[in-house]
């Protein structure tokens, strides 16, 4: 028997959550299919006007990513809360914030990363130019982890509440607006022939800010929910 270190414990949480996601594949697939469906509905609904589609592409993809990330947030802590694993996590000999960070990382890998990987394929439906697609991907890569991290605060606060899912969206969506603005702004800038660097830097800054603050805030929210 060996004592595990802080990094060992974080890796354990990530591996555990990924293993559970593999065993419950349906949950992961619903999120991804929802994203693909919502994005694909727009070209069908709006009609094949290339100019209009190109203009709205970034916005549609970002809003769809935002909505589908809401779908999986409810499950982030609720299963662990109901079966008592969360109690054991709070009693772990390392800081709860770091374990929460591990759970956020696993959540992003399962529900954020697939969206980033799907985005280029979906972007083609909107006739997005290659350069805009590239910026969209970088933006999503920087922005979707922020969505997972902000969402985790909401998930922790609404833990154990009836009808928590709707409340969760109402709490989290307004907080995600900056990510949406800078994410779509980057693509618009490139389409207008400007540099996307400033928008992407701001997204990066949001990511760093979220990395530093949200695990601690989420851990505090979990402690409140456990009482």
């Amino acid at each position, binding site marked *: *028997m060996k004592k595990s270190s802080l990094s060992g414990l974080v890796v*354990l949480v990530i591996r555990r959550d990924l293993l*559970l996601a593999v065993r419950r594949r349906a949950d992961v697939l619903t999120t991804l299919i929802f994203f693909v469906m919502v994005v694909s509905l727009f070209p069908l609904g709006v009609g094949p006007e290339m100019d209009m589609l190109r203009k709205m592409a970034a916005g549609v993809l970002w809003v769809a990513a935002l909505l589908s990330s809401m779908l999986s947030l409810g499950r982030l802590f609720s299963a662990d809360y109901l079966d*008592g694993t969360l*109690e*054991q996590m709070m009693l772990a000999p390392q*800081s709860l914030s770091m374990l929460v960070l591990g759970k956020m990382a696993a959540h992003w890998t399962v529900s954020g990363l697939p969206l980033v990987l799907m985005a280029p394929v979906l972007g083609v439906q909107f006739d997005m130019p290659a350069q805009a697609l590239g910026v969209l991907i970088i933006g999503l890569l920087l922005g979707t982890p922020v969505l997972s991290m902000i969402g985790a605060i909401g998930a922790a606060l609404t833990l154990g509440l009836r009808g928590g899912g709707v409340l969760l969206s109402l709490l989290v969506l307004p907080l995600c607006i900056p990510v949406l603005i800078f994410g779509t702004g980057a693509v618009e800038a490139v389409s207008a022939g400007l540099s996307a660097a400033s928008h992407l830097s701001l997204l990066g800054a949001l990511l760093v800010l979220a990395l530093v603050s949200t695990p601690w805030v989420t851990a505090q929210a979990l402690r409140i929910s456990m009482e």
Partner: protein
Amino acid sequence: MLEVSNLACSRGDHRLFSGLSFTLHPGQIMQVQGANGSGKTSLLRTLCGFLMPDEGTIAWRGEDTRNLDEDFHAEMLYLGHLNAIKDELSALENLRISAGLAGIELNEKEAITALRRMGLRGRERLPAKVLSQGQRRRVALARLLVSDAGLWVLDEPLTALDAGAVALVQELIAEHLARQGMVIFTTHQPLQVAGMEMCGLSLS
């Protein structure tokens, strides 16, 4: 050594207990007794730090547990009403993960040995959802075997267990006390631990 002094706890507007003081020394075991709703679980959850006491302090080796936080967690083991068992994972994976969360890295052989001692031979690799309630409890109790915590906080450890498993838990507790461990537990079933004096704490 666990020292509780002048502890008061309430749920909502209802005061469960107040002015509660006791000391638990190494090698001692304490049974918390009381009717349903008298605050046994709340007391244990307060000791763990899940609930904030209204007043009073809980000290571990002379230091307030709220300041110790993670250092205290490393020396205690809590087994509540919930088993913390995932249906999708096997008994083996469940035990290795729950031990890992408590800071102990188990290899497969150590985990299998622990599960076999808990009477789960042949069930190690079955997903937990096909195990019976008692078997799931046994998986949770296997953590007692692999833990090196000094203080065990057990909330109704005997629920859903058969006579054989109850005897096994008694044996584990006796071994733990012989190693100068401490146990505080609640139960509605009689629990005899050979050669140990039991302190009782009645809540009303």
